[in-house]
């Protein structure tokens, strides 16, 4: 047996946009074990629910993460609405879906940029983030915010989107799709990109199931599951199928996210075409009492909002089980036996969001 060496990876590392730490146990250049630790940006946001009224906690939920902030607010609102039996107007469901899918595009483009940066393709990184700016501009014009929107509230949404703006969003998406094709062709076809991704960090279908992987990580390993199929918000009115790849490697995970961007664009067009006129908010009275596990599909995978209410304005418990936290065991699985040089690729292809993980 070769001599074992422990190499610390993170919390500061060129490929890590946020801090996570891994102790990598190496035999020569091979990783035999990886031990993760977190807590560098732990904020205790779940605990804060004891001091915020249930209507105010939406703002806290949105601040769990800056990338999927809208979907955090939406998940929390859905959980409380289900406990209270509030049926939000159909237009509000469509608006939530529209912003959620825009968030998915912006998140996946951000990730593609980070991936390009990680394998040293600087210009590709810049092009990805340049495209992403157009989505942030849409957010700004429709919600007033580029990162935190604060448009989701219990009972519906705060802002409406008029018909002209909706047409404008579809026009932006149509224009973006052409530019995106040029970019994604590089990710899919380029020799040097494939060299870094194909066959690296393979997670088989069986392993993905056993370690409880979620989101693109799971679907890239051949498991056909996407929480949007539960039919929350307006997804029950839309036509789509989960994006699935079978190879389970870093390349397959990249392909899933690329195809999901195109899928989100299609869902946005469907939303714009089918969105009915009407109210955007349902007024409600009373306090929530009961509990609910609410599941949504965030860009990184299934998120669970557990809300337990006691009939007062303060909730007993909010627990957010985020996709990155769940994908950590899957990361450990793929790291076993890999080369040290491939570790950054593997860490990145779970699309780690440490803000979500730390809560």
């Amino acid at each position, binding site marked *: 047996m070769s001599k074992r060496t422990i190499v610390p990876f993170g919390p500061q590392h060129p490929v890590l946009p946020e801090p996570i730490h891994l102790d990598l146990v190496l035999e020569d250049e091979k990783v035999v074990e990886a031990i993760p630790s977190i*807590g560098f940006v732990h904020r*205790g946001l779940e605990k804060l629910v004891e001091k915020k009224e249930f209507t105010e906690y939406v703002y806290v939920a949105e601040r769990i993460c800056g990338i999927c902030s809208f979907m955090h607010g939406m998940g929390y609102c859905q959980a409380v609405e289900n406990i209270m039996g509030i049926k939000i107007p159909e237009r509000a469901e469509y608006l939530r879906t529209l912003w959620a899918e825009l968030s998915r595009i912006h998140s996946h483009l951000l990730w593609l940029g980070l991936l390009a940066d990680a394998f040293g393709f600087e210009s590709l990184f810049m092009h990805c983030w340049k495209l992403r700016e157009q989505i942030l501009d849409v957010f700004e014009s429709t919600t007033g915010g580029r990162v935190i929107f604060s448009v989701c509230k219990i009972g519906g949404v705060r802002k409406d989107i008029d018909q002209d703006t909706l047409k404008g969003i579809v026009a932006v998406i149509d224009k973006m799709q052409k530019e995106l094709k040029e970019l994604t062709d590089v990710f899919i076809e380029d020799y040097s990109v494939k060299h870094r991704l194909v066959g690296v960090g393979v997670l088989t279908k069986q392993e993905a199931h*056993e370690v409880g992987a979620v989101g693109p990580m799971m679907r890239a390993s051949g498991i056909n599951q996407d929480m949007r199929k*539960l039919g929350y918000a307006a997804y029950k009115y839309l036509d789509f199928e989960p994006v699935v790849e079978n190879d389970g490697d870093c390349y397959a995970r990249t392909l899933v996210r690329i195809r999901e961007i195109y899928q989100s664009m299609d869902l946005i067009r469907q939303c714009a075409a089918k969105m009915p006129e009407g109210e955007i908010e349902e007024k409600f009275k009373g306090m929530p009492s009961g509990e609910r596990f609410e599941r949504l599909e965030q860009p990184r995978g299934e998120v*669970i909002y557990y809300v337990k209410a006691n009939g007062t304005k303060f909730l007993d418990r909010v*627990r957010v*089980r985020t996709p990155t*936290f*769940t994908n950590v*065991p899957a990361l450990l699985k793929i790291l076993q036996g890999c080369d040290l040089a491939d570790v950054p690729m593997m860490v990145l292809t779970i699309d780690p969001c440490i803000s979500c993980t730390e809560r």
Partner: protein
Amino acid sequence: MVDKQTIIEVKVDELVDKAVLMKGQGYRLVQISCTYKENFEITYSFDKDYELVHYRIHVERDEEILSISQIFFSAFIYENELKDLFGVKIKDIAIDYEGGLYRVAKKAPFAPQNKEEEEAKHV
């Protein structure tokens, strides 16, 4: 599709058997969560074909429970979290951080561990 969910209360010593049952039936471990009121209310959630099944146990503060990470490896991360945040006593975790999953200055567990600590926190 309706998000079908069932919460089943079980005794502490039945939990491992239930986890084995879930594994055998092809369920995926989705999450483990904890709420503290008079005791720890711990919920284990499993998914198969979009159907969520929750097993719930009630654990006293000084009671020790068995880890299910030997059955579902991914349980180790949730169980370490329960140890760090709430101080739930869990033995035989596949990777046991002994209260060090969260690298923060404050020593785990973060939640008050007795009546005096609880009262001191509310002053």
